[in-house]
């Protein structure tokens, strides 16, 4: 019997970009874990017990100690399994990594979703503009690096999986031309590099079911007009 039984569990839903972030981190570190698929329409007692504050996924549980919030989880994973580092070692670079990851959550995630999934046209347009502006900042920040993390992907790249995989799906559904190689050549090139990286590729959900689910949501939104 092993001296210390590591018990690692991830509560998630297939198709969640936030859950995917954690899965990428775990794959990078080669950590074995038990995955529990939640039904957000009927949340399990386990989820409610482990994330009473927000009742959301992902929730990461390590030796029965729960951690919610994807970016908090990813930092925890990085600090617990130290090989293949996700955050840089230099304090200033770490501050930048945290800043841009949070930027993605604050300025890209909501706006990009609402750029498609909003019934009111004016509201939708406003969100398209905000998304554009936010992506422009990221385009400028990436410069000529292969990944935001440099030669290897890091925290910001992981946070930006939303941009690489999910935004293209939204815009296809909504007929929006926002994240294109014309508009954001560097960021677009980065997204192709990132989704094709072996670790990331293995962590992404299958595209078709996610597309189908998000398309149904879009259609029910338009129908409710």
């Amino acid at each position: 019997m092993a001296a210390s039984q590591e018990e690692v569990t991830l509560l998630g839903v297939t198709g969640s970009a936030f859950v995917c972030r954690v899965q990428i981190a775990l794959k990078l570190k080669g950590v074995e874990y038990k995955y529990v698929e939640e039904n957000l329409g009927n949340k399990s007692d386990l989820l409610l017990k482990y994330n009473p504050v927000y009742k959301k996924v992902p929730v990461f549980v390590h030796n029965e100690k729960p951690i919610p919030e994807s970016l908090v989880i990813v930092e925890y994973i990085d600090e617990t399994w130290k090989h293949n580092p996700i955050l840089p070692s230099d304090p200033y670079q770490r501050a930048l990594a945290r800043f841009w990851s949070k930027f993605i959550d604050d300025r890209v995630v909501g706006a990009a979703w609402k750029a498609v999934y909003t019934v009111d046209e004016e509201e939708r347009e406003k969100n398209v503009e905000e998304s554009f502006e936010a992506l422009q900042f990221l385009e400028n920040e990436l410069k000529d690096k292969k990944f935001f993390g440099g030669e290897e992907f890091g925290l910001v790249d992981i946070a930006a999986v939303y941009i690489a995989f999910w935004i293209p799906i939204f815009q296809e559904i909504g007929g929006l031309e926002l994240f294109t190689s014309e508009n954001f050549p560097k960021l677009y090139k980065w997204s192709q590099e990132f989704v094709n990286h072996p670790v990331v590729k293995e962590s992404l959900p299958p595209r078709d079911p996610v597309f189908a689910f998000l398309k149904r949501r879009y259609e029910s939104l338009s129908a409710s007009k």
Partner: protein
Amino acid sequence: MAEEVVLLDFHPSMFGMRVRIALAEKGVKYVHKEENLRNKSPLLLQSNPIHKKIPVLIHNGKPICESLNIVQYIDEFWTDKAPLLPSDPYQRAEARFWADFIDKKVDEAGKGIWASKVDQHEMAKKELKESLKKLEEVLGDKPYFGGDKFGFLDVALIPFHQWFFSYETVGSFKLDCPKLTAWAKRCVERESVSKSLASEKYIYEFVLGHRKVSELD
């Protein structure tokens, strides 16, 4: 080479206070620049072009933005004294989670009172009370959120305590969080905290000024 540390700040800001406390805990000498938020300096706009907000810490010409980010940076750069984040990864995760909760829930609810019209107060007051109750549960019987030692989460929350008076007065209600009040008294006994906090009165004057200019009443 001499260390050059500059803080772009705004006295009543709870976010600015966090950084002041962290710098004081570490005994870091710095140049303090008070910003006029209605007329932001070129340095601020250049150092934080994305959010254009204070606080910004400029260390040897390199800007760091977002208060919790800055506090972590300070903790990771000046490691010789007063560790702010715990050493255990799980406790660090907890501290980060609750600090983020303060920003998401306490600050938002607070704004729903001090920076909002009266008709928006009911919802915000309820949210604020609930959020503070959760934080009291997190504190439990510990002297500090950090346990026996004053730490990251204490730094994150104590400036908000200075704003309670404004929330209560503008909202015409009482927050009723005795555990937090006792904890705050303990924090203020630290010199790093007492010399970094803006007074309740100063903050309230700022709030009144803001409400007048924004025609909230």
